[in-house]
């Protein structure tokens, strides 16, 4: 069944490009239904009992095409995030991308990217994963620059060049692994790595992987492309990139490879800790100094992704569960903040926060939902972000990385600081005369903002009631 998540999008891309009269017009609707279907499908799957990854669901189509796919709770979380972000991107895109021709291209690219992202999370084979990764990446280069703004083209080019480097690193690592184990499937590689002593080629492969994924995920010190790409991309594309693309391309892959393939080798924790804490602190620090709404959010993404890396560094246990939960939460609150920035940008025509003020009365929904997102991002209870950060901090403390835990906690004060500065500069204060006619954003932007805010509140409130078994299944991903 799950392989349909890859094939149906591909089929739809072919369908909407057929030279029949009416089909182009329904492209948007089809993509929308696709996103909705994915959300419903993963929710249904989530609430049916699931065996662990090692005996992952193999299905008929997968056998037929001879690539292995498998599903566990991590996959389901990611699939849900992909569906959700796609939905929100489409809703926002409806308001922002008004030209019919551009919108058609936009929808096409999104659906291709979706197939790629679904493929990455479902793949049980390192080379398959790499292929889908490239599909998603190529689609996102074009998405950044499809409106052909000069700055957007520059940002996309930067991303392309750095990603090319990442591809080289990842391919070399895959080659090394095939050398050691003789196969590309996760199960066989992880078995081979466990049997062997893990000599130099293995360590080298792991290092190459970490660097490659870190570029894709925008983790410091490999983050150079990210602020430009997030800032210059069209508003809905920023949501898509920040919400899910970097997360799947960089973080999901990292989690899979580190925990499943390499069995959370001890030496990797140190590297991850350093990269994680650097991202957390410098991302937050850089965000503090920004005037551009979206650029601040971009640096904030780097910082939040750092928390996920820290959770991963703790290894199986609450840290890892927190990391996975933070992927979901970050998707929700960062997409929400980008939706808010899209609302402000479309209505006022600027992203420079120094030129804005007092919008809370003019845009009450945007203002309220941005508070929810900000507080969730800063880890203020009872919102969802609090719980994932709490799990990560407890995980760090229990793993003995106490200093890192302290720094990570203190960094959340900087997070709150810059997010409050958005509130102060954009939504509070006196309304300037040139902003008197600003109205609340409408339609798709509103629906997405309210939907995401409801999820951020709902997950936060529901968290204490989730069964311990579910947390445990997230915290013990070690397959094979």
């Amino acid at each position, binding site marked *: 069944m799950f392989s349909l998540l890859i094939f149906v999008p591909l089929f739809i891309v072919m369908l909407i490009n057929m030279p029949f009269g009416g089909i182009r017009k329904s492209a948007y609707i089809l993509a929308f239904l696709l996103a909705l279907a994915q959300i419903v499908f993963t929710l249904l799957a989530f609430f049916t009992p699931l065996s662990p990854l090692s005996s992952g669901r193999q299905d008929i189509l997968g056998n037929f095409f001879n690539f292995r796919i498998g599903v566990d709770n991590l996959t389901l979380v990611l699939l849900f995030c992909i569906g959700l972000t796609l939905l929100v991107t489409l809703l926002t895109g409806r308001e922002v991308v008004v030209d019919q021709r551009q919108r058609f291209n936009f929808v096409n690219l999104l659906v291709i990217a979706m197939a790629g992202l679904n493929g990455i999370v479902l793949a049980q084979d390192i080379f398959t994963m790499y292929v889908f990764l490239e599909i998603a990446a190529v689609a996102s280069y074009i998405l950044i620059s499809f409106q052909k703004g000069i700055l957007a083209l520059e940002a996309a080019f930067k991303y392309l060049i750095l990603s090319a480097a990442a591809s080289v690193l990842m391919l070399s690592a895959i080659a090394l692994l095939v050398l050691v184990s003789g196969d590309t499937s996760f199960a066989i590689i992880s078995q081979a790595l466990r049997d062997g002593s893990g000599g130099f080629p293995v360590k080298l492969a792991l290092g190459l992987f970490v660097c490659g994924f870190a570029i894709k995920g925008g983790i410091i010190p490999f983050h150079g492309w990210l602020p430009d790409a997030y800032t210059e991309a069209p508003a809905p594309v920023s949501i898509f990139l920040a919400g899910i693309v970097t997360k799947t391309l960089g973080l999901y892959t990292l989690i899979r490879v580190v925990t499943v393939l390499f069995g959370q080798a001890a030496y990797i924790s140190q590297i991850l800790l350093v990269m994680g804490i650097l991202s957390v602190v410098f991302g937050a620090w850089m965000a503090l100094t920004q005037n551009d709404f979206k650029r601040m959010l971009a640096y904030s993404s780097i910082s939040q992704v750092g928390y996920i890396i820290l959770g991963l560094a703790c290894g199986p246990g609450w840290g890892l569960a927190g990391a996975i939960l933070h992927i979901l939460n970050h998707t929700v609150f960062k997409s929400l903040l980008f939706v808010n920035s899209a609302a402000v940008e479309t209505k006022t025509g600027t992203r420079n926060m120094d030129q804005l003020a007092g919008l809370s009365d003019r845009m009450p929904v945007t203002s309220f939902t941005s508070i929810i997102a900000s507080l969730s991002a800063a880890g*203020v*209870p009872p919102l969802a972000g609090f719980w994932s950060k709490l799990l990560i*901090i407890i995980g760090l403390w229990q793993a003995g990385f106490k200093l890192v835990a302290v720094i990570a906690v203190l960094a959340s004060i900087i997070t709150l600081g810059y997010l*409050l500065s958005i509130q102060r500069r954009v939504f*509070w204060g006196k309304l300037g005369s040139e902003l008197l006619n600003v109205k609340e954003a409408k339609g798709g932007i509103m629906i997405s903002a309210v939907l995401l805010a409801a999820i951020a509140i709902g997950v936060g409130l529901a968290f*204490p009631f989730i069964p311990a078994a579910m947390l445990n299944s997230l915290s013990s991903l070690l397959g094979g």
Partner: protein
Amino acid sequence: MRTEATLLGIVFIPLLGSFLLPLIGRLSARFRNYCALGLVLVTFLLSASLIGKVLSGQAITVSQQLVFGFSTVFTADGLAVFMASVASFISLLIVIYSFGYIDHYDHQSEYYFMVVFFLGAMMGLVMASNLIFLYIFWELTAIASWRLIGFFREKNQVMRADKAFLVTFFGAVVMLLGFIVVYQQTGSFDYATIKASLNGGTLSNLAVGLILFGILSKSATLPFHTWLPDAGVAPSPVTALLHAAILVKIGVYVFARLFVATFPIEQIWHTVVPIIAGVSAIVAAGAALVETDIKRIIAYSTISQIGFIFFGLATGNMVGVAGGLLYILAHGLSKAGLFLCAGIVEQNTHVKDINRLGGLMKTMPFTAIAFLACSFSVMGIPPFSGFFAKYMVFAGGINNGQIGTTIFFMAGAFMTILYLLRVFYKVFMGETGESQAPEGSASMVYTVVIFAVLSLLSGILISYPAQFVQAALLNLPGVK
């Protein structure tokens, strides 16, 4: 079962009911105000209805199995019911006062929403019986106070609201680390389970120190006090709420709850805490002596008086702790009265500088008398309740053999008399200042007179609250 429902009602009626207020406000402003009053009244009546139950030595517990192995969620014992009754009663009067004060400003719906929400969060914090729930409600109060301090939305106000939020958030996350240390030490967040696993031993000093850090930041004790005078930019009923009923009392209450009523701590803290409190009391009193802004003087007075409460609670003997708790009541009543009087003066004269005021006795006699009566209670003049409470604190200190510290605090009490009389003379007596103004509106004047009368009555009838407090303190580990 019915008492459990009452307990849940105390927390969730105001907390959830507050969300209806903005909606009701769209229909009718008047009806919304009465609904806000009604919610607070119900909260108070429910809290008061538990007094009989807890006096007979029973504690009411709401249990629910939740994630992290939480088993008890809320507990109402003597201490909790005392605090809940005091806080909700003072809030009740402050809401009545708000009818007159706030009715010509924008964003009234948000005001009532946040005030009632604030109270609900306070109730949750008071009743919480595990550390994570304590933390959640702690942060909810921070969110509410952030919105309320920034109520006027000018740049200056918002900056200070952000400051208050950031300082208390800083304290809170440090406290959260303390909770994680406790978790590491005992394997639980539940008060009862922690107590059982400590098994007569003491909490680790690291945990106590970190938690104390959070407590001191919330109750604005040196060296984290600067946000409180700055928060005086809020509307006067809000400052009254922050100082008298809710915010700064949270720190004191949590100290009483964790370190007096629940966990044994090492002896050294019974010396360290009074010294910090003493320095805070003296320094803040000195600042109050030189300030010229009426609200800042009263704010410094709060910082100073909170020191007395900490001193009482930290003595660890019956008289001292009972005195500390009674002073929460006495200080709450009289400090609320002082701020509300200051609010009348400020709103009618538009001047906050005491050097530019004078002779207001002639035009606002009721306010002047109420101010004087409340000042007497804070100074500790018999038969006002402040006298009895301070006396008991000093007696507790002497009983504990801390004669030097007690003398130090007596000097602080003397300075209290000086700065409060200074304010009274400059504002209400002497030559007529540059601004002369009539009395405030009826609901405002009634409220301050009621506070003055209550300060006196609670002194004359001190035996009733004293009996209650002593019953609440029986058999607590921190009280000998």
